[in-house]
């Protein structure tokens, strides 16, 4: 049995003629926090959706705990939690019902106990109990992210995915979310996979960083390695320069 929690080999995914993932090889070790960076439209979200079974890859292999997930009938979502880019809270449910969704639906917990547990986790992410009965539309963007984070961690998943967790937030709120991500993941001992183009967030969250470009992982290393690398693609991405090998179609 390997010490990889997630192992991706030769993953291909195209939409029509556009190749989005072009032979991705990637592994995430148990308890590791891996951050995948890359420009907009490089396939980061597609990668995360393939791992979660929300999209079916054209070919390749995705293993979780050494078990192939592509084509498998097994429910892989029980092990996973996800914080979506826009939080993706259910409009028709209150905040606590959103947070406790998996407890109510999968664990068949009573509504009273589920609400108490939701309030406990909401507290962990810095939200007061009186937020519990509000509707998601009444919350700010930062609060919605916190609720999304609470929903992602409440069922104590082994793997947590974060899709652009700091996008659309001010720098201070972004840092608060980064801290919460680290605390939540460490508290659970979970393996995390984050996709972002926010380098401050990547440096703070990551044990290891991988860069996705043109559908392939072109670099992988620790935060220390990132500072020393002479990879021109990575250097350009980290510096945020428009000059370099990465060209942007205008």
């Amino acid at each position, binding site marked *: 049995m390997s010490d990889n929690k997630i192992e991706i080999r030769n993953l291909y995914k195209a939409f029509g003629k556009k190749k989005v993932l072009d032979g991705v090889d990637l592994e995430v070790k148990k308890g590791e926090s891996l951050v995948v960076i890359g420009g907009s439209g490089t396939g980061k979200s597609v990668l995360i*959706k393939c791992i979660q079974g929300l999209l079916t890859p054209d070919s390749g292999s995705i293993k979780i705990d050494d078990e192939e997930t592509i084509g498998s009938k097994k429910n892989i*979502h*029980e092990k996973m939690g996800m914080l*979506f880019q*826009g939080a993706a809270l259910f409009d028709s449910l209150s905040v606590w019902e959103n947070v406790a*969704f*998996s407890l109510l639906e999968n664990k068949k917990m009573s509504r009273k106990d589920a609400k108490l547990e939701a309030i406990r986790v909401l507290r962990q992410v810095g939200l007061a109990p009186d937020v519990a009965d509000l509707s998601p539309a009444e919350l700010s963007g930062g609060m919605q992210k916190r609720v999304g984070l609470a929903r992602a961690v409440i069922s104590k998943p082994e793997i947590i995915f974060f899709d652009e967790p700091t996008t659309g937030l001010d720098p201070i709120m972004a840092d608060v979310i980064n801290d919460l991500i680290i605390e939540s993941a460490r508290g659970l001992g979970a393996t995390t996979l984050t996709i972002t183009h926010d380098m401050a967030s990547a440096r703070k969250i990551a044990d290891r960083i991988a860069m996705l470009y043109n559908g392939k992982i072109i670099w992988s290393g620790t935060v220390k390695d990132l500072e020393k690398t002479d990879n021109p693609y990575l250097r350009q991405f980290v510096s945020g320069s428009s000059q370099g090998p990465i060209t942007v179609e205008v």
Partner: protein
Amino acid sequence: MFNKAVENFLQTLGRPLVNFLMNLGYFSQFVARAVYNCFMPPFYFKLFGKQFLNMGFYSLPVVGLTTLFAGMVIAIQTYSGFSKYGAESAVATVVLISVTRELAPVLSALMVAGRIGAAMAAEIGTMRVTEQIDALITLSANPFRYLIAPRLWAGVVVMPLLVLFGDIIGIFGGYVVGVYKLDFNPANYINATMQSLQAIDVISGMVKAGVFGFIISMMGCYHGYRSKGGAQGVGEATTNAVVASSILILIFNYLLTEVFFAR
């Protein structure tokens, strides 16, 4: 040169055909999956109740008004046409048959398609483009059971009840015009209505309504589920849901009328 022109011509013909077949295949798969999941646990009774209330109770005013005025119009038109041949006494019968067999089911379904089909497509479409449906999947909930099955059940159960209500209101509309405007004797009008009343008229209308309810919910869910590209995509889904369900309602109305009444 000639070969190239033929190739271009065939491509022009072939691409829409391939797209049509692909969409037809996707739609058939969607319908099969939706129907299958209607019979598979868990059943979300609370969500069904919510849809039932929304589609049924809150549609009562619009269905009532539509069928009331339809019944009133039919009474006047029948009187105006039949009085030339001295057949005014047929007004009550014509109102009864028109309302129960055609007007109540078709007009109610078209009104509900505009009110509820559009709302379903918009709600599910918004959930699709804001990743709420993906979130459902990641939380181990099956969107077909959680979102679509309660709406389909509500459509099939609610529409016949709405049509029954529409039948009563529509016949009442004919009675009001017959008695207060056309000077029919109230007892005679009611007597003529009761004598003409046949179970098949009401039952055929309710069966049609059940089919229309299924069409409205299915179109709303299907177009919402497939929507993409933000607000514009949701807008398109809403329009497509209403147009598709209206057309299908009219087509299935003809087919079901053939089944029930063609000799």
